[in-house]
């Protein structure tokens, strides 16, 4: 037997597609198997999607910032407990020739009163100088002009509904006024950011208004300092120089470190990651059991036929190859509906929770790999049944 013939049989490229024909001989059983695999895949997509979505949601605002480097207080643990640091540290960073611009930002949780039913809820307030660049989105620059007047705020219309129908009223042209920390504010525009772990809603205002709403804040203190480097400069090199330049009462982070620190907080100090990973693991186990059952009974049903092939002189490994190909086919056919339904459910979850749950390549590949491992592992287990195929018994 030539090597090519061997590979041909192994991969079915130049031989009868035995694995496919064995699987499709009983369409109902195949459908059940695919439903099981798809279900397991959907479960994994959902659990991993929720997990990543929740972590991504924790940095919706972090990601928006127009910054290469970020200054925060070393005492800051997460976005819900930001500590202040002297604003002059941010100004000091301008001493570096490759720092192009800075934006001081105040960041704190405040109490928002629902203008419709007067209930109160905690909201994340961000204060900045309306003429400074804050977000990457250029639209904010235009909207921010409205903040130059005192007592004006931009409301995040993707905030949860408990904050009141602010977006709706504003679009209708009504004047939306309410209280933040007991002081009157007027909504001067809408932005779209989305809720996160720490905050169910967001508002943006001028530094002046921010300090009026929170009179206790020392005027020289900020929570976040955004630094932009000159085009072509290496942010990491600038970061190293600033770390050497500035005293120990501030931390210099790159933007991605800033995001990661926030995600890390939620990852390590909450049970969320564990719970959803466990959920995905359950999906994996359920899938394994289903595929193993299907392949095992498939091999058992066809045992006399496998024995016949062995009697004809087919080597055991070519029969193992048939079972392996069955596993591969199940993985591929079961993954496609899982991917499709996963997309649909993500859209549903986005609409219902406003969490940024989206399909991404990494997760698509991870789930496919898990399904592949599940099917090939089960196929390997089912192959042990092949050892029972005794060609001497078929006469």
């Amino acid at each position, binding site marked *: *037997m*030539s090597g090519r*013939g061997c590979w*041909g*049989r192994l991969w079915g490229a*130049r*031989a*009868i597609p*035995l694995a496919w*024909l*064995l699987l*499709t*001989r009983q369409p109902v059983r195949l459908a059940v198997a695919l439903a099981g695999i798809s279900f397991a895949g959907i479960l994994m997509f959902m659990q991993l999607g929720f997990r990543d979505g929740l972590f991504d949601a924790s940095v919706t605002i972090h990601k928006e910032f127009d910054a290469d480097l970020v200054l925060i207080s070393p005492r800051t643990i997460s976005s819900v407990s930001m500590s202040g640091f002297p604003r002059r540290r941010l100004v000091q960073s301008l001493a570096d020739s490759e720092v192009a611009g800075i934006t001081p930002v105040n960041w704190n949780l405040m109490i928002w009163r629902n203008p419709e039913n007067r209930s109160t809820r905690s909201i994340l307030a961000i204060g900045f100088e309306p003429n400074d660049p804050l977000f990457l989105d250029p639209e904010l620059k235009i909207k921010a002009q409205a903040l130059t007047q005192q007592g004006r705020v931009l409301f995040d219309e993707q905030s949860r509904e408990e904050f009141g129908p602010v977006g709706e009223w504003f679009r209708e042209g009504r004047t939306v006024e309410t209280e933040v920390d007991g002081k009157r504010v007027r909504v001067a525009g809408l932005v779209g950011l989305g809720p996160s772990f720490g905050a169910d809603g967001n508002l943006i205002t001028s530094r002046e208004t921010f300090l009026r709403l929170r009179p206790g804040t020392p005027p020289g203190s900020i929570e976040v300092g955004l630094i932009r480097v000159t085009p072509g400069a290496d942010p990491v090199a600038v970061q190293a120089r600033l770390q050497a330049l500035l005293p120990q009462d501030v931390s210099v982070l790159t933007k991605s470190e800033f995001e990661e620190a926030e995600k890390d907080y939620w990852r390590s100090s909450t049970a969320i990651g564990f719970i959803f990973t466990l959920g995905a693991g359950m999906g994996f186990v359920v899938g394994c059991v289903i595929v193993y059952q299907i392949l095992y009974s498939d091999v058992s049903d*066809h045992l*006399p*036929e496998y024995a*016949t*092939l*062995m*009697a*004809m*002189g*087919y*080597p*055991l490994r070519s029969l193992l190859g048939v079972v392996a190909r069955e596993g591969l086919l199940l993985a591929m056919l079961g993954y496609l509906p899982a991917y499709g339904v996963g997309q649909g459910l993500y859209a549903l979850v986005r609409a219902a929770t406003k969490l940024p749950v989206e399909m991404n390549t990494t997760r698509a590949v991870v789930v496919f790999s898990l399904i592949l491992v599940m099917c090939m592992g089960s196929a390997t287990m089912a192959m042990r049944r092949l050892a029972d195929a005794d*060609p*001497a018994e*078929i*006469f």
Partner: protein
Amino acid sequence: MASSTHRNGSQANGSNSDGSQPPATVEVRGLCHWYGEGEMRRQVLADVDLSIHPGEVVLLTGPSGCGKTTLLTLVGGLRQVQQGQVRVLGQALKGSSRGQRQRLRRQIGMIFQGHNLLRCLSAEQNVQMGSDLLPGLSYRARRDQAREWLRAVGLGDHLAKAPHDLSGGQKQRVAIARALAAHPRLLLADEPTAALDSRSGRDVVDLLKGLAREQGCAVLLVTHDPRILDVADRLVEMEDGRLRLSPSSAPLVALA
């Protein structure tokens, strides 16, 4: 694997070149076989001697349970030889490995009582499972051969039919086509006519004999069926694990 093919090949060439009587396809000497172990050990074959030459059709008869099928599985390399000498196509089977026997089986066609076709394949694909064992042929060539064989057994109109759409006789003919498609040098058949009526049973053995003869293939056929005894070149009877040889075709004439 390549070396074993080579060995078989050179042996075949050698026998052709010296021009003498070619070596026997099957050579069995002093074969004994037992089933079970310890107290339960039971002898099924005792001191069996048998030779089959290329192109010869040998019928093996005897009451059921006398060890016919066991002999067939031993000659076919489906069981490990316990005691005695079995040479098939020049290869000694005593002490052979699983892999050696598996490679030997590629040159042995087998036809089973229950036809044992693959249910998920069409008639044509079943036969192709046989021709797929031939090395160095393209998919198209193997498929064409399979079709050729089905036409030879008179099933040219049933290529795409699934086994359950064929009658018993047709299924057995597909099984014959499958066994012959791998160009075997030895054909083993276990009661190929058991499930067939007398007419189709007759057709099947005639076909078997004709095709085997064309291929120069030795045939060992186990049967109970008295209606087909006359196809044999030689008739061998077995009783209680021993052979009662009929040295010439004389008893056949009497039976026929």
